[in-house]
C-alpha cells in the first residue's frame, strides 16, 4: 500500500495543470494591465497593478445590478429546489415499490433528462411571456421545475438507502408524515442536499441560455448576460472586459474554494449512483 511517490507522473500532472492555469493566469494579468502594456506584450507580467480596470468595469457593465439579479435568482432557485424537490423525491422513493403510479412518475421525471432543451425553447418563451413570467422570479421558478428531472434521480437513489425503521419508529411515537419528513428524513439527507444545492447553484449562476431567452427587460439582466452584452458593445477594451469576466467568475471560484470537497463528492454521487 505505501508505495513511493511516483515522480514521473507527478511531473506530467504538474505540466498538464499548466493547461488549466495558464488561461486563468492570462485572464488575471490582462485584467491588471493598461491597454498600452497589453499592446506591447500579451504574455509579460503586469508592471503596475491597475485595479482601476475593475472599478471602471463595474461602472461600464453596471456590475452590482447584474450581480444582485444573479444572486437573487440563484438563492431562490437553490432554496426552493432543496425544499420542494426533496419532498417530491421522498414520496416517490417510498412509494415506487408499492405503487405503479409512483414508479411511472419516477420514470416520467427521469426520462425528461433526454429531452434536448431546444425542443422546448421556442414554446416556453411564448408561454412564459404570456403568463408574465419573463422576469427573475419566473426564471428561478423554471430552474426549480426543470431541476426535478435530475434531482429526483439522485435523491431517490439516496433516500432508498435510508432504513425505513427510522420512520416507523417516528410514527409509533406519534409523528405524522409531515413531521417525520422534517424531523427525521430531511436532516439525514444533508449530504445529498448539499450536492443538489451546489449543482443547482452552479447551474443557475452560470446558465446563459435560459436567461437569454426568458429575460427581455434589460434591468433583469444576469451576470453571464451582462458579459455577453458587454462583449458585443465594448469588445475592444480587453482590460475592462477581462476585469469584468473575472468578477463574474469569482463568486463561483470562492464557493469552490470553500466547498471543494462537497463539490467533488457531490458531482460523483450525482452522476454515478445506481
Amino acid at each position, binding site marked *: 500500500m505505501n508505495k513511493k511517490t511516483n515522480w514521473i507522473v507527478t511531473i506530467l500532472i504538474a505540466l498538464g495543470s499548466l493547461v488549466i492555469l495558464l488561461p486563468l493566469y492570462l485572464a488575471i494579468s490582462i485584467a491588471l494591465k493598461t491597454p498600452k502594456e497589453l499592446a506591447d506584450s500579451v504574455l509579460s507580467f503586469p508592471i503596475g497593478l491597475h485595479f482601476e480596470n475593475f472599478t471602471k468595469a463595474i461602472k461600464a457593465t453596471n456590475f452590482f445590478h447584474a450581480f444582485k439579479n444573479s444572486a437573487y435568482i440563484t438563492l431562490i432557485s437553490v432554496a426552493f429546489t432543496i425544499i420542494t424537490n426533496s419532498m417530491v423525491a421522498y414520496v416517490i422513493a417510498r412509494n415506487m415499490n408499492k405503487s405503479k403510479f409512483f414508479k411511472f412518475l419516477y420514470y416520467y421525471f427521469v426520462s425528461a433528462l433526454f429531452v434536448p432543451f431546444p425542443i422546448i425553447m421556442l414554446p416556453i418563451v411564448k*408561454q412564459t411571456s404570456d403568463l408574465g413570467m419573463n422576469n427573475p422570479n419566473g426564471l428561478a421558478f423554471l430552474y426549480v421545475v426543470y431541476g426535478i428531472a435530475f434531482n429526483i434521480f439522485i435523491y431517490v437513489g439516496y433516500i432508498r438507502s435510508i432504513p425505513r425503521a427510522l420512520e416507523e419508529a417516528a410514527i409509533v411515537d406519534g409523528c405524522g408524515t409531515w413531521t417525520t419528513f422534517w424531523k427525521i428524513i430531511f436532516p439525514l439527507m444533508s449530504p445529498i442536499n448539499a450536492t443538489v444545492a451546489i449543482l443547482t447553484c452552479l447551474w443557475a449562476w452560470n446558465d446563459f441560455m435560459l436567461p437569454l431567452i426568458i429575460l427581455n427587460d434589460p434591468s433583469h439582466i444576469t451576470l453571464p448576460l451582462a458579459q455577453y452584452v458587454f462583449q458585443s458593445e465594448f469588445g475592444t477594451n480587453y482590460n475592462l472586459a477581462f476585469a469584468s469576466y473575472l468578477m463574474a467568475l469569482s463568486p463561483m471560484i470562492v464557493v469552490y474554494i470553500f466547498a471543494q470537497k462537497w463539490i467533488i463528492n457531490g458531482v460523483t454521487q450525482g*452522476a454515478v449512483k445506481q
Partner: protein
Amino acid sequence: MTIPAVVLFAAFHTFPVLKGIYYSFTNWDGLSLDYKFVGLRNYLNLIGDKNVWNSYIFTFKFALVSTILVNIISLLLAMGLNTKIKFKNFFRAVYFLPNVLSILIVGFIFNYIFAYVIPALGTKLGIELLKSNILGNQKFAWIGVVIVAVWQASALNTILYLSGLQTVPEELYEAASLDGANKFQEFWNVTFPVIAPFFTINMVLAMKNFLMVFDHVMSLTSGGPGRATESISLLIYRSGFAGGEFAYQSANSVIYFMFIIIISVFQIKFLQKREMDM
C-alpha cells in the same frame, strides 16, 4: 406535494414539448395571429435545407471528436491523479476548477487567446501554423470550439473516472502483478473492465452535452465564420426567434430530439453489452 410538482412539470416541460411538436405541423411564424396546418411540409423542407445540413454536420463532427478526446484525456488524468503523486489534493482541485466556471466566459477568454496570444506566440517562435486566428478560418474554426469544450468538460469526466478508479480493489492489482502482467495488460484486463459502467456514463453524458453545444459557440465564433460553426441549437435559436421560422425550426427540434434519443439509447445498449461481456 407530488401532485403540484407533477402538474407544474407537465405544464412547463411536457406541455411545451407537445406544443413544439404541434407547431412543427403548422406554418406559424411565432407572431401572427393565425396559422394553418401544413402537414409534413416543414419536415420535407428540412431535407433540402443547406443550413440545416450544415448545422447537423458541424454538431455531429464536433460532438464525436470532443467526446472521444474528453474521454481519453479524462481517463489518463484520472489514472495520473489516482497514483501516488505529490500535492495530490492540490492538483485534483486544479483539474476540477474548469467545471465551476461559466462556459460563456471561458469562451470569451479563449476567444482572446486564439485571436491574440497564440498568433503572438506563433510569430515569436516562427511557427507558420499558429500565426493566424484559428477561429477566423472557415475550415478549422470548429477545432477551436473542440479545444475549449474539451478544456472545460474534461474536469467533470475526470472526477467521474477518478471515483470509478477508487472502486477497483487493490487485490486485483496484486494478483495481476503475481501473474506477471505488464502495465498495459493490467489496465486492459483489470482496470478497464471494473470501470466500464463509468465509461458508459461518461460517453453518454459527454455526447449528449456536446450535441446541445450553444454557449461555446456563442462566445467563440457566434456560428462563424460564415456558418462554419453554427450548431443545431444555435440555428434553432436564431432562425426560430428572429428569422420568423418558428414552426419550421420546431420541426427541426423534433428531428434533433429524435436524434438525441436514438443516439443515447444506442450508446447505452451498446456500451452496456460491452460491460457484461467483460
